[in-house]
């Protein structure tokens, strides 16, 4: 087969397979019918409107937002200094430390959730929201370290060494010289962390209590009750939110370099 036919055909099929379901979700959510169906039965915005009236969606959206923003911020507060130490210092046990902070990416999320429920929530009576916050922070930490390390490694270290030689304190050199240069890396890590945390399911599966659950978990349990198109509408809205954030990030930061 010649590349001339091969390329467009393969791309059409593959991209269709990857993106197609998303359009179906969008179409199904604009249906006027009572159940999830494609092609949609008539056009209506009633399911989109319903999303905003379901109380549990509002609560779980707030929790997911709080976790995604707070957890990612906390992961950066821990991760930026760690990345700095890993890339600029002769760090004792450097490799061990790097492995420990990147473990949460390797171990299946459901196991983390279960372990936290069993050995942190139950014995210590720790609040579920707080536990979720800790779990999401741990989950985002590897991404934070990886992305921030990458942008530190792209930055020549002799600039800050020069600043220190010229009499600046180490901290001063970091905030005045390094930070401005890795700002876009940090923002990229923030966005990646936000999306990861916001869409996270397995970790949060066991970490739900009465009235406290993340949005994806809430959507799952809503689907156990009914398949009405409101979950499709919510999915579509969330997808547009994620795409919007990523698009802006790409536009201003060249985000995909860091993924």
């Amino acid at each position: 087969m010649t590349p001339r036919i091969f390329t467009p055909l393969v791309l059409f099929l593959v991209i269709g397979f990857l993106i197609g379901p998303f359009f179906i979700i969008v179409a199904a959510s604009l249906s006027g019918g009572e159940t999830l169906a494609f092609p949609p039965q008539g056009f209506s915005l009633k399911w989109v409107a319903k999303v905003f009236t379901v109380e549990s969606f509002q609560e779980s959206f707030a929790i997911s937002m709080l976790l995604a923003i707070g957890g990612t911020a906390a992961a950066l507060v821990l991760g930026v200094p760690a990345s700095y130490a890993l890339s600029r210092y002769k760090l004792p046990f450097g490799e061990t430390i790097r492995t420990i902070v990147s473990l949460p990416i390797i171990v299946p999320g459901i196991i983390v959730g279960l372990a936290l429920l069993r050995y942190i929530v139950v014995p210590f009576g720790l609040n579920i929201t707080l536990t979720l916050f800790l779990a999401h922070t741990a989950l985002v930490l590897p991404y934070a370290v990886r992305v921030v390390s990458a942008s530190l490694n792209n930055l020549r270290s002799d600039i800050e060494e020069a600043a220190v030689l010229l009499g600046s304190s180490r901290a001063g050199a970091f905030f005045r010289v390094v930070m401005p240069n890795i700002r876009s890396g940090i923002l990229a890590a923030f966005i990646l962390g936000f999306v990861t945390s916001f869409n996270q399911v397995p970790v949060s599966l066991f970490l739900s209590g009465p009235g406290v659950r993340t949005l994806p978990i809430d959507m799952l349990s809503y689907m156990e009750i009914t398949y009405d198109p409101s979950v499709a509408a919510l999915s579509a809205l969330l997808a547009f939110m994620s795409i919007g954030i990523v698009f802006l990030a790409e536009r201003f930061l060249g985000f995909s370099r860091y993924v």
Partner: protein
Amino acid sequence: MFQNRAEALALALPAAVFAAIVFLAPVVILLAEGFRSADSWSLSAYTTFFSDPLNRTVFLRTFRLGLMVTVVSAVIGYAAAFAIVNLTPRNKGQMIGLVVLPLMISSVARTYAWIVILGRTGIVNQALQLVGLSDEPIRFLFTETAVFIGLLQLFLPLMILSLISALENMPKDAIPAARVLGANWFQVFFKVILPLTKEGLVIGGTLVFTGSLTAYITPAILGGSKVLMLETLLYQRVTVANDFVAASVIAFILIVMSFAANLLLKRLATARNKR
């Protein structure tokens, strides 16, 4: 390179200690629970687990589906990645964007779409009947096929992205050179492209395989209780029976499978290299 060790530790330790306490310790305790029985170390939880035919079936199914998704995504991934790297830079950027896009959408939403698509009255069945490939609706929901399709859609982008970066790093003249020397496309792929991109394949393969092993949503929604995988079995054991020992066993199996896949693929990559 700064030399001050105390300063370095002060910067790095908070993150490490946090991950160790919040993450590592509970997981290690959980895994240890599977090796305890009546206050001594024992493998009895594992023999019990594997003596149940249901558990064996679920284990094999998880392994099989993981493998199938990995292999199929590698095949499609090569075709797609190859097509994408040969585009003009502008088109390439757009295509990569389209591949990355699904990764930004919640897996709940992505799986949910398949309920509509694969249902008895869904578009796949409508299309099959329209072109006369089947007379009556084929059942996809709650079958391994549905889970396979769902997983493939979920993880294919990771494979494509890994292979794109591998193909980009390949010497530009390798393929034309092989063609000039008379190699056919089959030979070009196995003798030139595969050896030169195996690192990308290993990364992509590991991501897809472990992703498939540890996906929860897809088998839960598209498979239900008829197509249990290890992850859904773990959830069921805990929620229905409070069986934390079985959960610990499954957790350990999942972790071992992920690490083993990683090691094996790496080994394969280096073995080919020596030849």
